[in-house]
């Protein structure tokens, strides 16, 4: 509790004790009315002086219709009509309610802050002379060496220069399996080292580090308000004056009509009804619970590695009907791997792979690297570069090398000068169909999936012989299929955009169960496709139309991320460009997080709707009862603070949404 809250609590207790004591006293001892009034005014002022003071000040500033004014009028009204105890009690319970609300809000604020408690307090900086001092991360310069002990949070982004460790990235990505890190690896702030001390050379200032970026993003998210929040602000703007004028009408009109009809006016009764009406009317329950729900939802999402840049995006996510995926890097790993080896009859798969690896051994192209990786995995050894010469890149076709093949049983580590005597020279060609044509190799089967490398060889003067081909493709992520199934189950249309050939695209689409795909797209075509899909969803300005989200890896797809209703960037940990361009950022690259994000958004929206409906329904009901004379001040207080506390508690449920 803050100092102010403690102070208020004291006032409430003192006043409560006084009210009870006075009520008991006056129950047994009869006193003149002015003594009773004077006695009750003491607890009244103890608990309510600030409310009266504020009401007076606000009236002077031309702000008439606010809570304090309502409470002042209602309680003074009650006291003026002889209900001294009621008047004090109403003020007392109003203050207790306010106190409770302030504690509830403070607590949920703290809960959310704890959820985002990834901010490192100190950095252990190592100086040139080897001494280590604790410093504020803000003061650490780029290129400093920092020491991170086991169990500590990495304060600043950098590169490990010494020591091995495993990293707990759960605060950033929601991923609980620790990740191994070794010297030379980049390390991002916010991770916790679990074992072993490491030394890190910082590559960024604290304020540019991942942890600062994330905190800033989440804190700013509540600045981008959702439609529901804007609706509430507008609602409050009109609601309060309407209620005040209604109360005035309730006080004036019925008694006048009664007088005209020749009945007693009952001014006091109608005044009490009007005052009850005013107390019920406070819009705070709705006004607070809506942003609180959104904030809780955003906090919950970020604890699971999903950063949502604003309440408006969380809201839009809930009404998303179509999700468009860029294939590479989102559905697939974005890393090329050998998928299939098609060897011709009479050629072993191993020989084909070996030939291919030898041909590609001098290249650093991703395709070549994937073949070399597959070679290493199969044979558990590296290519012997001594055996390869005359490497020739044929632009737009592929590569040819001359390979010195040793007879079986000769170990490859023999001296270089001995090789030439024993080896047979083989010319190896590896490349596309055009290369095969160029060298006169006859290719019987043409493959169309992924990237295909065809391999041919020729022994000295003999004709070129086609050996087979190796298919290289991007590998699907482990969770892709489940993620797509999950989304389809939620009734969401999934679309894949890819530059792959039609057949290959179709095969992948069927494999992962995506509802639609668009193949053979050039990078620029993706924006057009998204435009087309957007147009098919209906009018741009129609607020009720289903939303379209685009998921990309943040590389090269910034325009599409911006064009879609919601741009989701994936695997963005440490990538500033993606964090900048997207509306929702997935810290790790798990596509299953998308359905989790949608779940959180829907649940949050559901809670928001519950709160709006509940609060307004209870208020309207109480207002009606108040107008008809069935509601007393106690019910009015419940309708004000009770509803608010319930709504706040309901809103904090967003913090605990589970997968």
């Amino acid at each position, binding site marked *: 509790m803050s100092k102010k809250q403690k102070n208020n609590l004291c006032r409430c207790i003192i006043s409560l004790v006084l009210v009870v004591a006075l009520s008991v006293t006056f129950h047994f001892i009869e006193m003149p009315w002015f003594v009773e009034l004077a006695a009750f005014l003491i607890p009244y002022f103890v608990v309510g002086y*600030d409310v009266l003071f*504020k009401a007076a*000040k*606000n009236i002077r*500033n031309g*702000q008439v219709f*606010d*809570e304090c004014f309502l409470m002042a009028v209602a309680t003074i009204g009650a006291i003026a009509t002889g209900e001294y105890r009621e008047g004090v009690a109403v003020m007392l319970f109003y203050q207790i309610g*306010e106190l409770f*609300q*302030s504690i509830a809000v403070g607590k949920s*604020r703290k809960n*959310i802050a704890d959820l985002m408690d990834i901010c490192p307090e100190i950095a252990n900086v190592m100086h040139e002379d080897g001494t280590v001092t604790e410093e504020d991360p803000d003061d650490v310069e780029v290129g400093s060496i920092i020491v991170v002990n086991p169990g500590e949070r990495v304060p600043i982004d950098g590169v490990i220069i010494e020591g091995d460790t495993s990293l707990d990235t759960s605060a950033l990505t929601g991923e609980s399996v620790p990740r191994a890190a070794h010297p030379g690896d980049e390390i991002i702030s916010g991770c916790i080292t679990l074992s072993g001390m490491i030394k890190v050379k910082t590559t960024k200032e604290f304020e540019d580090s991942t942890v600062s970026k994330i905190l800033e993003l989440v*804190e*700013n998210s*509540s*600045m*981008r*308000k959702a439609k529901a929040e804007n609706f509430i*602000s507008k609602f*409050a703007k009109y609601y309060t004056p309407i209620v005040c004028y209604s109360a005035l009408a309730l006080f004036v009109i019925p008694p006048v009509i009664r007088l005209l009809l020749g009945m007693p006016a009952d001014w006091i009764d109608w005044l009490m009804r009007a005052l009850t009406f005013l107390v019920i009317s*406070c*819009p*705070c329950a709705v*006004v*607070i619970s809506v*942003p*609180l729900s959104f*904030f809780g939802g955003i906090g919950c999402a970020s604890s699971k590695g999903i950063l949502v840049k604003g309440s408006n995006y969380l809201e839009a996510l809930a009404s998303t009907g179509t999700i468009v995926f860029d294939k590479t890097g989102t559905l697939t790993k974005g890393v090329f791997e050998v998928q299939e080896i098609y060897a011709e009859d009479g050629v072993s798969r191993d020989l084909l792979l070996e030939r291919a690896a030898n041909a590609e051994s001098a290249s650093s192209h991703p395709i070549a690297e994937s073949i070399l990786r597959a070679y290493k995995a199969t044979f558990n050894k590296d290519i012997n570069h001594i055996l390869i010469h005359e490497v020739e890149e044929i632009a737009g076709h592929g590569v040819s090398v001359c390979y010195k093949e040793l007879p079986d049983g000769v170990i490859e580590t023999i001296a270089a000068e001995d090789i030439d005597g024993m080896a047979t020279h083989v010319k190896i060609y590896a490349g596309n169909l055009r290369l095969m044509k160029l060298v006169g190799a006859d290719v019987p089967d043409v493959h169309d999936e992924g990237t295909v490398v065809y391999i041919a060889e020729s022994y000295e003067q003999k004709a070129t012989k086609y050996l087979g081909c190796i298919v290289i493709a991007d590998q699907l992520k482990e969770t892709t299929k489940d993620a797509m199934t999950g989304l389809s189950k939620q009734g969401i249309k999934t679309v894949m955009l890819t530059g792959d050939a039609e057949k290959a695209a179709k095969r992948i689409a069927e494999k992962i169960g995506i509802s639609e795909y668009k193949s053979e797209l050039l990078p620029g075509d993706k924006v057009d496709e998204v435009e087309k899909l957007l147009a098919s969803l209906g009018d741009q300005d129609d607020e009720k139309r289903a939303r379209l989200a685009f998921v990309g890896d943040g590389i090269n797809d910034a325009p599409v991320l911006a064009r879609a209703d919601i741009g989701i960037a994936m695997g963005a940990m440490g990538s500033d460009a993606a964090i900048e361009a997207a509306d929702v950022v997935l810290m790790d690259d798990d596509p299953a997080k998308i359905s989790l994000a949608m779940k959180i958004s829907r649940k949050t929206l559901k809670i928001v709707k519950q709160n709006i409906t509940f609060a307004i329904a209870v208020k309207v009901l109480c207002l009606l009862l108040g107008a008809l004379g069935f509601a007393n001040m106690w019910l009015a207080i419940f309708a004000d603070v009770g509803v608010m506390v319930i709504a706040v508690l309901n809103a904090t449920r967003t913090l605990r949404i589970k997968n």
Partner: protein
Amino acid sequence: MKKTYKVEVDCAACAEKMQEAIKNTEGVKDATLSFMTLKCKVEFEDGVDPDTVIQEARKNCKKIEDDMEIFI
């Protein structure tokens, strides 16, 4: 030019009013106040001195809701 200020305010409805008051201050282009984070982001017009403008905004807020503070 944008600046973020820490604020203190007790109720959500008051926060809304404060936001309006800051927005309506001369020299302020736009303002967003988040009751949840108790932070206010103010975008100033070009060529004004943010320090004097925010003082003015604070005065305007005080007029509406005495029980608030902008930490300048």
